[in-house]
């Protein structure tokens, strides 16, 4: 019998299944970044003057900023002048009115990814705003959503058609000056999604966006803005997968959520960007700023993420709990394999009275990967009776990987209660032997233990997504066990 450690190592060593490049002519801007490029992006998107000015202001700030280096990740310096900041599939120029008008190659790509758009629309009742290389190609179910007043469209469309909403909320959660990558995104963001749920409206379906990077050497700078007006509810799903490629790619998205009085936003992510090959070549740099603002009383924002991809992940979906009795939640599964590095976690900023937050983080490290949880819980002086519960567990597969936990707690109000629990364990030979002795194959046994470990997070995902997430975890752990 082979040694168990070796089996597990072989086991987690698998190839990226979504690795393929679709041959679509891209309308790509030459690499490099200066004011002219930003003007060009803005012009291509037919943006109003105020939008261009906002971008230029962000660019001016970005030039004065420095890349952050505090995260527990290591990578060669990025040459920001070597990146192309805009690419659009040619067929996007004439916006398709139905699926028939969509480039068949695009549809084929979706099919390879297992997300046939037609079927999804019919079967799952999910409205898909599919982002393919920076430009929204297809949006479905717009009619049905419009009936109840829900706006779900590409970001560029929102800029043109709902400027008053965009101007009011854009940058109000993540200001352009927030951090290096947020400033960069603000200057060059290509496209993304915009959601507005009117007062007292429960969005009748899960809203979903699939991202995909598909042109060589193109940074992907998505911008997402979700606003839930008073008493509104929305569940938003974001899923990503990218094709195999050689060079590192920068992905610096910004997501802003605003929840007004009694509103509730549930934001779920399954992230499967290309992680690089077994030697760590290629793979996406995922430097994302995600933040939700519980602006209204009794509002609630819940982040759920399942992260299996990217060479480097630097991501802290956070909640600012401003409104009285508002609630923030963060449920996360982060799996790293081979030479992947992840530094991820959350920030819960308690400002209002009676605010509550829950953090459940599950990190799984395999191969030679490094997986860090970094979380901040800050209770401001005015946050009377605030409460936080943090649970942070790490699971190690094999002996060459690392798990790290960096919790920061700042409490300025004596009435607050903050709890932190953390555990680190190796996947146990006892558990695997127990399951195998019952007749379960080693591969299935590992899957079973890992899925059990993640259970608390998976149960927070919407049903269809939970299935997808488990599948993804299975694929990520699949390997050459003989």
């Amino acid at each position: 019998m082979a040694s168990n450690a070796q089996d597990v190592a072989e086991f987690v060593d698998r190839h990226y299944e979504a690795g393929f490049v679709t041959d679509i002519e891209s309308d790509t801007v030459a690499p490099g970044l200066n004011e002219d490029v930003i003007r060009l992006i803005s012009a291509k998107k037919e943006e109003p003057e105020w939008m261009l000015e906002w971008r230029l202001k962000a660019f001016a700030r970005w030039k004065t900023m420095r890349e952050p280096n505090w995260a527990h990740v290591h990578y060669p310096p990025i040459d920001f002048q070597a990146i192309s900041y805009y690419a659009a599939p040619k067929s996007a120029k004439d916006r398709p009115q139905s699926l028939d008008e969509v480039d068949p190659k695009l549809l084929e790509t979706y099919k390879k990814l297992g997300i046939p758009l037609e079927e999804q629309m019919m079967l799952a009742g999910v409205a898909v705003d599919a982002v393919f290389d920076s430009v929204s190609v297809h949006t479905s179910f717009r009619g049905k959503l419009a009936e109840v007043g829900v706006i779900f469209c590409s970001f560029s469309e929102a800029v043109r058609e709902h400027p008053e909403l965009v101007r009011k909320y854009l940058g109000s959660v993540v200001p352009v000056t927030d951090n290096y990558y947020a400033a960069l995104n603000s200057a060059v963001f290509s496209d993304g999604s915009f959601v507005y749920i009117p007062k007292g409206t429960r969005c009748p379906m899960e809203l979903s966006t699939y991202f995909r990077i598909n042109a060589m050497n193109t940074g992907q700078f998505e911008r997402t803005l979700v606003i839930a007006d008073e008493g509104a509810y929305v569940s938003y799903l974001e899923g990503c997968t990218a094709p195999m490629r050689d060079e590192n790619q920068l992905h610096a998205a910004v997501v802003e959520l605003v929840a007004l009085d009694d509103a509730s936003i549930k934001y779920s992510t399954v992230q499967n960007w290309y992680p690089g090959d077994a030697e760590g070549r290629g793979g996406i740099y995922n430097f994302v700023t995600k933040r939700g603002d519980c602006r209204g009383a009794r509002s609630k924002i819940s982040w759920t993420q399942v992260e299996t991809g990217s060479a480097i992940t630097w991501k802290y979906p956070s909640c600012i709990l401003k409104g009285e009795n508002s609630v923030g939640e963060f449920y996360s599964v982060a799996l790293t394999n081979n030479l992947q590095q992840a530094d991820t976690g959350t920030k819960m900023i308690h400002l209002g009275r009676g605010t509550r937050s829950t953090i459940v983080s599950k990190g799984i490290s395999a191969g030679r990967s490094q997986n860090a949880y970094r979380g901040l819980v800050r209770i401001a002086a005015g946050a009377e009776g605030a409460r936080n519960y943090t649970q942070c567990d790490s699971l190690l597969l094999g002996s060459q990987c690392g798990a790290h936990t960096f919790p920061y707690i700042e409490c300025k109000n004596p009435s607050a209660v903050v709890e932190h629990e953390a555990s680190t364990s190796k996947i146990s030979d006892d558990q695997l032997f127990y399951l195998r002795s019952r007749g379960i194959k080693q591969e299935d046994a590992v899957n079973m233990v890992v899925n059990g470990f993640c259970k608390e997070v998976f149960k927070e995902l919407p049903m269809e997504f939970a299935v997808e997430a488990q599948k993804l975890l299975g694929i990520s752990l699949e390997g050459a066990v003989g």
Partner: protein
Amino acid sequence: MLEIKNLHVEVAGTEILRGLNLTIGAGETHAIMGPNGSGKSTLSHVLAGREGYTVTAGSVTFNGKSLLDLEPEERAGEGVFLAFQYPIEIPGVNNVYMLKAALNGIRSYRGEKELSAVEFLKVVKARVKAIGLDDSLLNRPVNSGFSGGEKKRNEIFQMSVLEPRLAILDETDSGLDIDALKTVSEGVNALRDGKRSFMVITHYQRLLDYIVPDHVHVLAKGRIIKSGPKELALELEARGYDWLLEEAAA
């Protein structure tokens, strides 16, 4: 059915089993007794295929096949079941879900059709009744937060669903109070159908009052030093092991 010949096993360079011979026929129940450190648990683990044990000599054949060449899950497929002395907790994994995967793993190993969820639940319902297991344990995570008695009962319940040809009970009586011991034993006895074989590893005669063996073996220093009928267990209870050890040394 099970034939162990001259089995030598090392753990981390130390020889634990030193030429063990044992034959168990179909439908027979054999008790293995012996002092602490005699190699009883090593024997059960080697038979189930646990890693970390090096077989340096000898053979184990099970229904004509060499057991030592098989992976643990393949041994389960052949019909070997080990009831653990310390059942393992697997957080987040539903007890019944695990058992369904196990049963279907075994069935597919044997080339049988996998059971649907409905068919499987029927089997489970019938077994739960027979074992007297608390229904609520079914949908809890495997052994997580179970009491000692619940864990042991769960082992016997799994055994009743998986229907092994050879069941190895590794100190199933340890940590059980008298009432739990009775229920667990009744569960085991219900599975004695004249074809299924049992290897019952225990320190105490008490268990053998309930699960009455056909043969009793004394394992000491890695070998069977004495075999006899069920009355041997009573003698051991009365006289301890020392006289046997002296006899063996002589």
